[in-house]
């Protein structure tokens, strides 16, 4: 069964390509059917206890294995669900593109690769699937050519560094313990020394940190997310970078175990505290950088970096509630960020721009899109009764009560940054004056907004009934070695400090009903257009009666000097330095035999002198 999923995923990807050569419509539905089947199979895999199966015995003395645990199942099911929705969304988005077959092939390969990563039972298979996903990702990021090529290059360079670090770590593990099997490694690593574990952790952290875009490994993400095709941005942001999260959970908790991970070093200089600190920086800075962005997708990309910070913070803080909150937030983020990328993609397709200074007023033209986006943004901020609220609540709560108010501060202030850029996004796209050129914008097609509506419903559903997911999350944290959470359908019960969405929901529904009733019983209100009202006594100027450009101008002037991406500048400097160094080396090769003879003579002279016992220093 385990192998069957991957055979369907990879075989299906190739078949989809072939079907596509024959009929575009057939290809679309074939891809969809394929992933609906995979989603069904994945949900069937739901493990009572871990299941292992060997798919290639005896490669370098290692059995290549597939394994499904609670953790990997949770990630696999999210990968499969988001994939199905993204394929539906792609129908219209990629329709008529000359390379649409290639697009589908790569998309399905990425999705299959991710599925393989989550289901791998040993590091070698993990690495293979990881690379399949990474390389297909590179091709998809560069899919639109032009600026996308540079973004893809940036991604691939960092990705190769990450893969190198992982490979190095794997080889080291293999040479030390003679196995790459996850279950075996976890036994061996329990007896290993602290320094060695730290060494392994650092190597894997580079690899997974790059994928998860933790500062200082985040520089690839903003260009990659903004230049990729919109449906693929949804995959990138929703699930692909979460493979880093999965990797971290895997190496820190499943392979090494919470005891080793949390016991590495003491006090604030312990490994996990430093990682928490990095995560806190990863929350705050990107959330503020996002405020400065004027490209909608770039803003969402920075937002992804920030939200990934919450997830890593949860995982690295390492209390039961924090890890559960981090995992829950991963899931929530997959939902709302995919939704937001899809909606911006739809806007871009309709208006052929995503420049926030140039859009506006679309609420009048595309109400469904507006409501879906509003729900997504509410989830992103974590407004109560949407899913983001609950996961963030769990993280805040444990940060406060387990004694780290400064990390809690970072997490909470990051949320305020989120509010600012979220409102800018909503306002500049949907509110304000509808520019003349967008008066004719039509509604999106069914296949475009259906996935968004599904995601929006899920965001609200999981916001009201967090227990549905938390039960599963609690299974996962139990397998990671934490005591189970007291999950109820409406939230968490008292032992962790109660929070109950039922109270909130009931209060909100009743109060809103009363307020609405009172509101309706007031004087009637005729509906008027933008220019037919008070407008503060001023006549409405033609065309440009709107306020979008420089939306947070005064604030930007205060904060932007502090928000230069110094790490990006540093990497740029590193590249320049490398080029300079290589150039210097190149100059040694003059192509003139005499120079080479001189080098040889000089070397000989030095060797002779040393041989004769001459010591110049």
């Amino acid at each position, binding site marked *: 069964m385990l192998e069957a999923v991957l055979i369907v995923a990879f075989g299906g990807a190739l078949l989809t390509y072939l079907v596509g050569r024959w009929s575009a419509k057939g290809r679309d539905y074939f891809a969809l059917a394929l992933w609906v089947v995979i989603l069904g199979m994945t949900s069937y895999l739901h493990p009572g206890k871990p299941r292992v199966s060997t798919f290639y015995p005896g490669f370098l003395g290692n059995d290549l294995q597939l394994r499904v645990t609670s953790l990997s199942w949770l990630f696999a099911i999210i990968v499969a669900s988001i994939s199905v929705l993204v394929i539906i969304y792609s129908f219209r988005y990629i329709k008529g593109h000359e390379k649409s077959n290639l697009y589908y092939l790569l998309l399905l390969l990425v999705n299959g690769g991710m599925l393989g990563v989550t289901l791998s039972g040993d590091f070698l298979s993990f690495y293979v699937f990881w690379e399949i996903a990474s390389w297909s990702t590179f091709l998809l990021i560069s899919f639109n050519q032009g600026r996308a090529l540079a973004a893809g290059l940036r991604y691939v360079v960092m990705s190769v560094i990450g893969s190198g670090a992982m490979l190095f770590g794997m080889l080291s593990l293999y040479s030390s313990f003679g196995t790459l099997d996850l279950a075996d490694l976890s036994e061996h690593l329990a007896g290993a020394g602290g320094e060695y574990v730290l060494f392994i952790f650092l190597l894997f952290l580079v690899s997974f940190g790059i994928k998860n875009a933790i500062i200082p490994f985040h520089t690839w993400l903003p260009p990659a997310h903004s230049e990729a095709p919109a449906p693929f941005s949804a995959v990138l942001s929703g699930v692909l970078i979460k493979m880093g999260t999965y990797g971290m959970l895997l190496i820190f908790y499943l392979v090494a175990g919470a005891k080793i991970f949390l016991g590495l070093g003491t006090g604030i200089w312990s490994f996990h505290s430093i990682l928490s600190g990095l995560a806190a920086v990863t929350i705050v800075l990107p959330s503020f950088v996002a405020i400065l962005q004027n490209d909608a997708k770039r803003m969402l990309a920075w937002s992804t970096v920030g939200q990934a910070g919450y997830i890593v913070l949860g995982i690295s803080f390492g209390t039961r509630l924090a890890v559960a909150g981090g995992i829950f937030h991963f899931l929530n983020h997959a939902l709302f960020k995919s939704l937001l990328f899809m909606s911006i993609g739809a806007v871009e397709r309709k208006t052929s721009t995503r420049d926030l200074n140039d859009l506006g*007023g679309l*609420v009048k033209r595309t109400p469904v899109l507006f409501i879906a986006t*509003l729900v997504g943004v509410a989830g992103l*901020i974590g*407004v*109560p009764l949407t899913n983001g609220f609950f996961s963030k609540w769990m993280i*805040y*709560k444990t940060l*406060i*009560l387990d*004694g780290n*108010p*400064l990390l*809690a*501060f970072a997490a*909470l*202030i990051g949320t*305020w*940054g989120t*509010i*600012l850029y979220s*409102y*800018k996004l*909503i*306002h500049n796209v*949907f*509110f304000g004056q509808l520019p003349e050129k967008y008066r004719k914008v039509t509604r999106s097609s069914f296949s475009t907004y259906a996935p968004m509506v599904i995601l929006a419903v899920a965001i609200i559903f999981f916001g009201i009934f967090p227990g549905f997911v938390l039960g599963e999350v609690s299974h996962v944290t139990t397998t990671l070695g934490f005591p189970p959470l007291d999950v109820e359908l409406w939230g968490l019960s008292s032992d962790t*400090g*109660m*929070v109950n969405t039922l*109270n*909130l929901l009931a*209060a*909100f529904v009743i*109060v*809103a009903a009363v*307020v*609405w009733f009172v*509101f309706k019983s*007031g*004087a*009637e*209100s*005729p*509906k*008027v257009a*933008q220019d*037919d*009202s*008070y407008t*503060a*006594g001023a006549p409405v100027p033609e065309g440009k009666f*709107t*306020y979008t450009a420089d*939306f*947070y101008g*005064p*604030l930007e*002037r*205060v904060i932007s000097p502090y928000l230069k991406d110094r790490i990006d500048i540093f990497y740029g400097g590193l590249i320049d330095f490398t080029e300079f160094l290589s150039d210097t080396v190149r100059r040694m090769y003059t192509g003139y035999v005499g120079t080479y003879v001189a080098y040889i003579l000089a070397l000989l002279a030095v060797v002779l002198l040393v041989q004769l016992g001459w010591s110049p220093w």
Partner: protein
Amino acid sequence: MVAMKVAGLVFSPIIAVLTGLLLTGASRKMVARVEWRYGPPLLQPFIDMVKLFFQRAPSHGEVFDYGLVISLSGSIVLLLFLPIGHLCPLGGGGGLLVIIYLMLIPPLGIATSGGEGANPYISIGVSRKLMLGLGYEVTLILVLLSVMSEYNTISILKVVQAQSESGWSLFSWPLVIPGIAYLLIMPAILGVKPFDVASAPQEISSGSHAEYGGKYLAFVTVGGGLSEFIGVALFVNLFLGGPSLPGAFTLPAGALGVFLGVILFLVKVAFVFSLNVMVSALFPRLRVEGAVKYLWGWPALIGLIGTIVVWAL
């Protein structure tokens, strides 16, 4: 206990709405007296509300209406989580963290409603409100974190409870530090001068209220009064012991005690609010940059020191 809950559910919003409007009227009167004017009658806001409610006013569409309703509902739901004296029907669930988040809903509701109004003054007002929010929220979060860490709870009920036993936080070490920080940012939370950048009537036609007339204006004014009430009530709960008397005095038990507790709470609210009115009567409006720089300066520094002291002790 059930009777208390029901009483809380019904009376909390009513008390808060009435107090909010009364405070609005009182602040006009006080400012007038500072400026040697006679000022409007104390109950003028109530008269205005009734008048406005029955006036026809233009609407800009569904989002325009729903946003406003959501905003006011958010304020009222928040009141159910915020103790008013001994009345706190939903205080047990989620505590201060829920309050922090519920405080977002009213401004975001207005922002959504105003968005469809498509008036640049609204956009400017909302953008300024959010920038100001980011400004004071830095300190506010630090203050709340200090309080929560000190009492080791996220429940506001327990914070109030603890103060009735061990004395008011504002006069205890080390919570006096965050208390001072809160006082320094309170005018910004209430949106009064010198921090009224978001409404700024003479400059941007009251910002987010620019398109509201009739019942819309009535609703948004009630909502404004509630936000002011909430901003002050939070301080009274966290730092002035909620309904408790200072020192060794205690309130009698039973219904009388509940009644006196609410009255005492409202007196404290009125006192703290009038301090802010005095500030607003004296200072001219800051620019947005100025406001943000002020808020991220001393208040944030004091807040940070408070958090670190609480954490270290």
